[in-house]
């Protein structure tokens, strides 16, 4: 059974970030023998003065393959975890969606996309969750995080939103790696140019920085690359900068 676990609004200016909590949850799900967690994605939601986010209004989501018999236990664990670990003054929300059981995945995706463009109410989030049959719960404060939690699940489900949390270490020679070696990393599915060209496996890429960051596109973890400036040789590609990835 594939599930999506999405959380939002768990932090304050001094606490661990929501991403750290998501990482811990993903790790503990595996340590408890409940299943296998996938990478965590970060999803940007609407920035608006009427939305009371702390600093950046983003939700974190990860997928997990579990045995269905563990679903209720995972929801209980995640609920208790957020109630315990969320920061003082935060408004945490939790969404657990069973991807295979959604009658209308398009509706969940649409909700996520709506939360990127407009203000959504908690009432609307709860109504949508009930209609979809997904778990949505609040665990402190105003519970405003349910909006982002549900939206994060929808955006992850879309397969076309978000950056992966964390950087990936890729072995390189003189700072370069072949696409086949990059894609041999468990969390990289494809190398693609900003213009949409899928690089063949024999192509090489200059890896800028110690680690690389991928984005979620077409359901895949994609390393985006750009043309390296001033090159006329075959080493023409380099990994994108943080600035180039900011809108993903």
């Amino acid at each position: 059974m594939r599930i999506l676990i999405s959380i939002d609004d768990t932090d304050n200016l001094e606490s661990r970030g929501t991403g750290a909590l998501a990482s811990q949850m993903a790790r503990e799900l595996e340590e408890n023998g409940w299943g296998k967690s996938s990478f965590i994605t970060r999803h940007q939601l609407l920035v608006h003065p009427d939305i009371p986010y702390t600093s950046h209004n983003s939700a974190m989501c990860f997928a997990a393959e579990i045995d269905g018999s563990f679903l209720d236990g995972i929801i209980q664990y995640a609920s208790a975890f957020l109630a315990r670990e969320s920061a003082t003054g935060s408004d945490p929300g939790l969404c657990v969606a069973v991807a295979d059981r959604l009658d209308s995945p398009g509706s969940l995706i649409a909700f996520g996309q709506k939360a990127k463009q407009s203000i959504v109410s908690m009432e609307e989030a709860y109504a949508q969750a009930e209609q979809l049959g997904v778990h949505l719960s609040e665990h402190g404060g105003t519970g405003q995080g349910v909006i982002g939690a549900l939206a994060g699940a929808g955006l992850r489900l879309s397969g076309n939103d978000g950056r992966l949390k964390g950087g990936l270490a890729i072995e390189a020679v003189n700072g370069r790696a072949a696409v086949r070696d990059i894609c041999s990393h468990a969390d990289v599915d494809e190398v693609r140019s900003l213009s949409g060209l899928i690089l063949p496996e024999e192509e090489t890429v200059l890896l800028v920085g110690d680690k690389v960051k991928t984005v979620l596109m077409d359901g895949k973890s994609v390393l985006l690359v750009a043309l390296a400036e001033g090159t006329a040789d075959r080493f023409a590609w380099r990994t994108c900068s943080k600035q180039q990835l900011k809108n993903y």
Partner: protein
Amino acid sequence: MWYINQSGDNVFHGGNEDWQGAARAAVLCSSFRPDVEEERIADEPVSCYNCRYRRWTAASFTCSAPDRQPAG
């Protein structure tokens, strides 16, 4: 580099794509604190865009650093 909006917040004049300006402001700021990895978007490690105290707005950000005086 900053102005005060109607809510009394310190708003960065440079918007959300003034990479050099945001880096300059952070270097001059004693309150700079790096945000978590997944929220850092500037290539310069020390940048207001990467600071835990920056609060994004539609066109820029406000600075939430406690006891901070804008650099001007």
